[in-house]
């Protein structure tokens, strides 16, 4: 009876936890609640089945839990998306292993059990290999090779899927050995489905794979006969789908185009800030941090547009410092946050929060877009695709329709960037060639530091200090 109470209690906590995670005020405690629910569930299960095999349990607990904790506490905030992908993949792997283990138990499985094993293996394997590919792409270990974008890839994936189904049928016919090829084929299918997806769309894929891992968990629940596992898995699976949808809407992409459309700007160039593509731009003005500082000093309203380049350079603290200096000088400073700035929705908010940037200075896209025309200086720091005017002006562009920050409306735009390489989506950015735009080449952090120096030598900080003292 007590086990049942504990199980029901943990289902309730899980549901409230998941709900609370969707609201800023409650998110952190909700996360704790969900963790508590999982702990309770473990206690309930152990009460039910006893501690048989505890050395094995400790082994898994020590190694898995230990590594997870170390990674979670050490990893930089910039690599959050790929970390989530890695964790997710391991969840899928766990479901896969449980299913493979369960078929070898002496007690024969009924039909529901067998089907669940198949679902668990199939979805678990796709989740695992797909998540690892997603991680590799986000880390830029993997690119989007051209051959993955040929139309034939759909045929290959369909063949793989059919082969998986054939293996499933064999297993149900009483040939359990077919689980081995099923595992291999499903792992390949995971790779085949994820590899062609462009880096910019990766968050959506991770979210979808997250939903899959919920499905795999629910299937594992059927295999071992745990209702708690079924409910929790189903809940995460469904919630993950909703979240995926929400993210797609924020990026103005449909799920089908993410999954089957291939990478944005496919084949035009490799991703990354390489030197390639420099010759594509003809009318680019570049300027030194000094000139930039002079313009800044005379400005009244400044908006910063942070992007992933800022995160890579770990420049959020320097940016905060610069913002404070400008504010002391009486300049209005705000940050424009594109919903998908960085490599995952909400990524920039996390990073700037880390640097203690006040909440009310972060303004979301829809709120700040009308303000660009009356803004003196916009500084784009390592952002590219989210400020590309082509998304509004060029129906032929793959970015067309994506809501962007309308920085081209501002009086002066400085784009801080390492080189003229194309953005993550691999698309040329017309902003760089506009007359009001100047490029400041360099690492975001170094540029910000020299800006700080220049501004201080212009007396910006001192004036403010004097004014402050006289108040």
């Amino acid at each position, binding site marked *: 009876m007590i086990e049942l109470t504990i199980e029901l209690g943990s289902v309730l906590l899980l*549901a409230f936890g*998941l*709900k609370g*995670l969707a609201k*800023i005020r409650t*998110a*952190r405690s909700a*996360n704790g609640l969900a963790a508590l629910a*999982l702990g309770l*569930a473990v206690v309930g299960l152990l009460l039910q*089945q006893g501690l048989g*095999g505890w050395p*094995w*349990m400790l*082994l898994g*607990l020590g190694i*898995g839990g230990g*590594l*997870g904790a170390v990674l*979670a506490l050490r*990893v930089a905030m910039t690599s*959050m998306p790929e970390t989530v992908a890695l*964790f*997710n993949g391991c969840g899928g792997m*766990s*479901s896969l292993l*449980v299913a493979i*283990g*369960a078929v070898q*138990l002496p007690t024969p499985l009924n039909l529901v*059990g067998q089907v669940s094993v198949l679902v668990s293996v199939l979805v678990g394997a796709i989740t695992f290999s797909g998540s690892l590919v997603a991680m590799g792409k986000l880390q830029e270990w993997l690119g989007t090779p051209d051959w993955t974008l040929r139309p034939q890839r759909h045929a290959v994936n369909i063949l793989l899927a059919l082969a998986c189904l054939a293996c499933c049928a064999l297993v149900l016919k009483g040939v359990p050995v077919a689980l081995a090829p099923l595992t291999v084929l499903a792992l390949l299918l995971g790779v085949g489905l994820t590899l062609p997806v462009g880096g910019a769309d990766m*968050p959506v894929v991770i*979210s979808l794979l*997250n939903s899959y*891992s919920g499905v795999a*968990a629910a299937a594992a*629940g059927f295999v*071992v*006969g*745990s209702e*708690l*596992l079924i*409910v*929790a898995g*189903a*809940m995460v699976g*469904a*919630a*993950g789908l*909703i*979240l995926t949808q929400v993210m797609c809407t*924020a990026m103005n992409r449909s799920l089908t185009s993410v999954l089957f459309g291939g990478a944005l700007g496919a084949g035009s160039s490799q991703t990354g800030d390489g030197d390639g593509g420099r010759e594509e731009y003809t009318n680019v003005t570049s300027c030194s941090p000094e000139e930039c500082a002079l313009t800044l000093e005379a400005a009244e309203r400044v908006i910063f547009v942070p992007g992933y380049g800022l995160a890579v350079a770990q420049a959020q603290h320097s940016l905060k410092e610069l913002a404070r200096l400008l504010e002391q000088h009486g300049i209005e400073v705000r940050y424009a*946050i594109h919903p*998908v700035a960085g490599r*995952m*929705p909400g*990524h920039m908010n*996390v990073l700037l929060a880390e640097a*203690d940037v006040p909440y009310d200075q972060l303004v*979301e896209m829809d709120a700040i877009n009308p303000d660009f025309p009356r803004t003196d200086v916009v500084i784009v720091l390592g952002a590219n695709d989210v400020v590309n005017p082509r998304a509004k002006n060029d129906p032929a562009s793959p970015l067309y329709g994506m809501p962007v920050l309308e920085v081209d409306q501002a009086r002066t735009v400085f784009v801080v960037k390492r080189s003229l390489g194309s953005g993550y989506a691999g698309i040329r950015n017309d902003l760089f060639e506009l007359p009001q735009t100047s490029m400041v080449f360099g690492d975001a952090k170094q540029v910000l530091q020299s800006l700080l120096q220049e501004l201080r030598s212009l007396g910006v900080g001192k004036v403010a200090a004097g004014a402050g003292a006289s108040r």
Partner: protein
Amino acid sequence: MSGHLGGTAALWVLVLGSLLGLELIGKVPPTLHTPLMSGANAISGITLLAALALIGQAPTPALKLIGAVALGFALFNVVGGFLVTDRMLAMFRRREAN
């Protein structure tokens, strides 16, 4: 291996659980997309229950080892997922206080 309910009732659990999941998350502010994904991901590591059950019922060491590895993967997901989510959300809280 059987829980409290029979096969058909478990299917009801599946359907109702899915509906619950659809309802729980409606509007999510973009700020929370990453933490929510990460938190939901940690919850999906609940397969650790299945891994524990497998260890409990496995007759041979080889099978127990499979269970232990599965448990390891699941716990990596759970412990890492919750901690990372907490790290992200901790930053928002500090900002709220300002």
